[in-house]
């Protein structure tokens, strides 16, 4: 029982940040038909920016020169995600990705892989290669006792962020003008263009929204991990697994996929630690073989 609770709690926190990254990845794919490998880098940039800002403002966990109250560090995490998402997202899309959006699926995939390689080094150039550990927001929340076992509270906050992000995304897509335009573009690029929708602009917005989600995932997981070069490499491949399992282009699918992968991995870590990665990719393969479009990919029609 205690073990099961642990699996559930660990799985939920793992699923939360996986969802944040995967939702952006799947949204961008749904709109632009581009599988964005550089999405992992946006996660990494978000994590680095957040950790760096927190360490700057509260060196050693104590209020620094600006003497800001430590509670503000949560706002700083959000700020870091917005800075990265709103600056780097449009930059990547406008300068590089927009140029290849009509060149099939392979070329954009490889282009984003190239961008991914570049961003890996850019992160090292900016923040060095030593790990950044900014656990102030994590430590401040302390722990809570559930059924006699202590659990850190911070992962629950992460889950909260994921839920809020999911709700916001749902509202944006289903209740805003931008959402309606996005749905039109997904349904038919050419007709949308003919109707006067500025498709490249929709692409830029969609990509930026996805980038913000990835950076949010990075920024809010930064306090739980030690931010080192290479965080992006692991995250993107897991996000691939999640989006494939849920169905590329489906945000609901990303949520289910993230939960499945999160809980499965947590269970494997507790019961068969040798297979913690294997189960994820085995599930990914099995889903691809049985339902290539994923659990929620549907046949074609609308994906979001």
């Amino acid at each position, binding site marked *: 029982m205690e073990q099961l609770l642990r699996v559930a709690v660990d799985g939920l926190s793992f699923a939360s940040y996986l969802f944040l990254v995967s939702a952006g990845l799947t949204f961008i794919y749904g709109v632009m038909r581009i599988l964005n490998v550089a999405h992992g880098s946006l996660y990494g940039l978000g994590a680095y920016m957040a950790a760096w800002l927190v360490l700057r403002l509260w060196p050693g966990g104590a209020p620094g020169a600006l003497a800001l109250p430590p509670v503000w560090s949560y706002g700083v995490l959000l700020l870091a995600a917005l800075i990265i998402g709103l600056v780097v997202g449009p930059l990547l899309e406008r300068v590089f990705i927009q140029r290849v959006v009509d060149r099939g699926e392979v*070329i954009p995939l490889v282009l984003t*892989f*190239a961008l991914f390689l*570049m961003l890996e080094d850019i992160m090292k150039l900016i923040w060095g290669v030593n790990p950044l550990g900014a656990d102030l927001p994590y430590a401040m929340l302390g722990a809570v006792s559930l059924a006699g076992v202590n659990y850190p509270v911070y992962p629950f906050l992460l889950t909260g962020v994921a839920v809020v992000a999911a709700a916001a995304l749902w509202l944006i897509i289903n209740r805003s003008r931008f959402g309606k335009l996005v749905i039109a573009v997904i349904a038919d690029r050419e007709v949308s263009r003919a109707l006067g929708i500025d498709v490249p602009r929709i692409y830029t917005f969609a990509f930026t929204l996805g980038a913000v989600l990835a950076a949010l995932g990075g920024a809010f997981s930064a306090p739980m991990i030690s931010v080192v070069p290479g965080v992006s490499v692991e995250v993107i491949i897991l996000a691939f*697994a999640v989006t494939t399992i849920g169905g590329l282009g489906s945000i609901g699918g990303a949520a289910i996929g993230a939960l499945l992968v999160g809980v499965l991995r947590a269970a494997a870590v507790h019961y068969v630690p040798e297979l913690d*990665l294997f189960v994820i990719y085995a599930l*990914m393969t099995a889903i691809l073989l049985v339902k290539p*479009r994923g659990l929620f990919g549907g046949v074609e029609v609308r994906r979001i």
Partner: protein
Amino acid sequence: MTLEERSLAAPELAGRRLPRALGLLEASGAVRAAVAVLVVLALVAPLLPGWLLFLLTVAFAKGLVVLGVVLLLRGDLVSFGHGLFYAAGAYTVAFALRWGVPVRDAAPLVLLGTLVATVVAALVGLFIARYRGIFFGMLSTAFTMILYSLLLKLYWLTGGTDGLAARPAGILGLQPAADTLRLTQYYFVLVLTAAVTYGAYRLAASPLGYLMRAIYDNEIRVEYMGASVRQAIYRTYVISGALGGLGGALAAVAVGHVAPDLAYWTSSGEFVFVALFGGAGSVFAPLLGAVVFEFVRNYAFKLSPYTWQLLLGSVLVLVILFAPGGLWSLLERLAQRARGGKRS
């Protein structure tokens, strides 16, 4: 993508910029140049320093894997998972040596590695030949990540992140001393590479080669013609996997060590990277790409260990945006200009 969707997508496909030199038959000039390069590579080898021989040996081995990736690219299929075969070939050599197979010679071990990878490709191909586009790439990634997770975690079998040694006792009955080992390996890999490239050259001009090109243009028309797309893709996939295994086994022998990273997704990404970097316009392009890539990486890494990926990434971005045919198309353009730009 189903066939029906493909036919709907046809107008879009036709408007796409094809690499200019997707021709299957090489210009005779290219063949003559390749033979000349081969002769030079064979003749100058004894004069080259050990590190250069090693670099070229590894580049040729990886070039073979890239050649396999290119064969699939010609049918518009991107395998983001050739690390699967690369690692299968490499680990076969290491396992065979570790578990006391009586043969300690490199040649039969490389053959064994190639066979194992071929069998893996024949099995995976049964499933993957149905997939196109992004799903083909995803499924190939999934398979290589499965192998990676096993190689990484089954410590008692694979040595985990430490990997395993792969040092055969000799090559083709020769027992080269330490100072001639590199040279012997170099010749061994060079001869194999030349033979396999010739095979790929013939393959490109065979019905299967033409079929792959037709599939690139329009899959549904190939079906209407009466040819089996799935069979053509399956066969090409198996051949491609065999090349991956051969490259992996050769690289393992040259490096003397194998590690799970060979199967990680970034390793597969690198092969696709080199494939586009070299270009898909010729069977010689992957080798050219692999050699230039290894040089650039070697020097960039020495000059600045924190920015070599930045450099490589920038080069690839430039190639994709401004030279879609890769290095090979640039060479061709140069050659054309040298001849006065009349013949193509």
